């Protein structure tokens, strides 16, 4: 008897749930809830404050980036995602466009002066831009807090690289490897400090190209320019002279960031009210930064950049761990 009552109650409950769940009104309500997210209520009159603050902050960022010898993108993403109300998706999209425009502005001059080497950049760009697409796709598919946590850890890793990486003005390359010989990755440039023409070539090309698999992926995933990683690999691992490495790295960003930028643009991660003030701020800041370069103390600026990145990396990590409920 009790068993039959339980069965009937179970059937009734199942029927009721089916009726409710299959009801068109319920379906519509659930669809609306799923497709139209809640838009937060904000004070509409003060909308211009954040773009204005963004303009000022990116202006300062542009100065620091030039003086500290880093790209704008590596400062932009952790700082803006950590301290501004913009979602990480838009910050990464904007960060890529900031790094891209910086590279586009510098690229033509560096190529014409033969400091950026097209022959060195082309094979590297093929790998880095392919992986930047993969990185961008993975970054957009993962939950935000996972990307934020990875970003925080990456920024702390960049701090470690900046603290430990050495530079070699003209690395000793005893012999070019077979791949770089086949692709004729070599060149001549005039070094004014030594008053001589430097014949340069590269070695460990397969290892260097393999490293750009990781660099490209990270550039696309986090929307960071990858100059912080490009220069040590080109200079210390592959043996390109420092000036060639720095110039080729800057030019390389125009290709790597192009591929990732398209993924973000096609996904809709572009809000002009964020992009344009950021670009104007960074460009004006870089303009002033170049002029301050003559009087600034590079060691102090370098430590300041490391300090800012350390703080931004910890902030990103803290934000992600808080969102995950760990802290």
């Amino acid at each position: 008897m009790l068993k039959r009552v339980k069965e009937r109650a179970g059937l009734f409950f199942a029927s009721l749930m089916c009726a409710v769940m299959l009801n068109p009104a319920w379906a519509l309500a659930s669809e609306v809830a799923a497709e139209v997210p809640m838009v937060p209520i904000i004070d509409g009159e003060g909308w211009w404050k954040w773009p204005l603050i963004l303009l000022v902050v990116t202006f300062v960022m542009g100065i620091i980036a030039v003086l500290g010898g880093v790209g704008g993108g590596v400062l932009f993403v952790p700082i803006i995602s950590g301290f501004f109300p913009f979602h990480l998706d838009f910050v990464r999209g904007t960060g890529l466009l900031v790094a891209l425009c910086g590279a586009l502005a510098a690229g033509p001059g560096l190529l014409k002066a033969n400091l950026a080497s097209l022959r060195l950049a082309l094979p590297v760009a093929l790998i880095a831009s392919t992986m930047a697409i993969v990185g961008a796709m993975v970054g957009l598919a993962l939950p935000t807090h996972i990307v934020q946590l990875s970003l925080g850890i990456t920024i702390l890793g960049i701090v470690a690289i900046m603290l430990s990486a050495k530079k070699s003005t003209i690395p000793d390359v005893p012999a070019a490897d077979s791949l770089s010989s086949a692709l004729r990755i070599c060149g001549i440039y005039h070094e004014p400090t030594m008053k001589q023409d430097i014949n340069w070539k590269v070695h460990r090309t397969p290892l260097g190209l393999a490293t750009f698999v990781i660099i490209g992926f990270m550039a696309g995933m986090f929307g960071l320019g990858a100059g912080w990683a490009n220069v040590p690999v080109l200079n210390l691992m592959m043996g390109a002279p420092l000036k060639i490495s720095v110039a080729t790295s800057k030019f390389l960003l125009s290709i790597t960031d192009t591929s990732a930028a398209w993924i973000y643009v096609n996904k809709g991660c572009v809000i002009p009210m964020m992009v344009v003030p950021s670009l104007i701020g960074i460009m004006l800041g870089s303009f002033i930064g170049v002029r301050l370069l003559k009087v600034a103390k590079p060691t102090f600026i370098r430590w300041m950049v490391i300090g800012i990145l350390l703080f931004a990396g910890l902030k990103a990590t803290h934000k992600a761990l808080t969102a995950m409920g760990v802290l």
Partner: protein
Amino acid sequence: MSEITKEATQEQLLYANILEKGMLIGLGLMFITFGLYVFGIMKPVVPLDQIAAYWSMPVGDYLAAINHNFMHMDHAPTGWAWLHHLGKGDFLNFLPVAILSGVTIVCYIAIVPGLFARNDKAMGLICMATAVILILAASGLLAVGH
């Protein structure tokens, strides 16, 4: 193949010149389109006084919300859908962004014939492969999301 000299190669100069022109056109246009948008000369899809309510949302939610509240299209505006809304101040700004993001593809396509003409087949093939990858990225076929 050409001799190695201190001077930039023909391909490098061609690439630099196209890159420079594209960059100047893109950045110049960006200032104009942003001016049209921010000074209210062209009406945007999302009113300026409401944009702050949307930029803190994940991109998927943002697109769904602006589509539902302002655009009323069958699908959220992803990929090249911005082309249909160039009459709106905010979407007009996608045009310079596309130029800045697209100029590298033009540079690649431009240098390929010269590389093959100088029998630099390996670099020519690398250029062609990269151009294909960049075009694929630009096409919008590689769509993902949360």
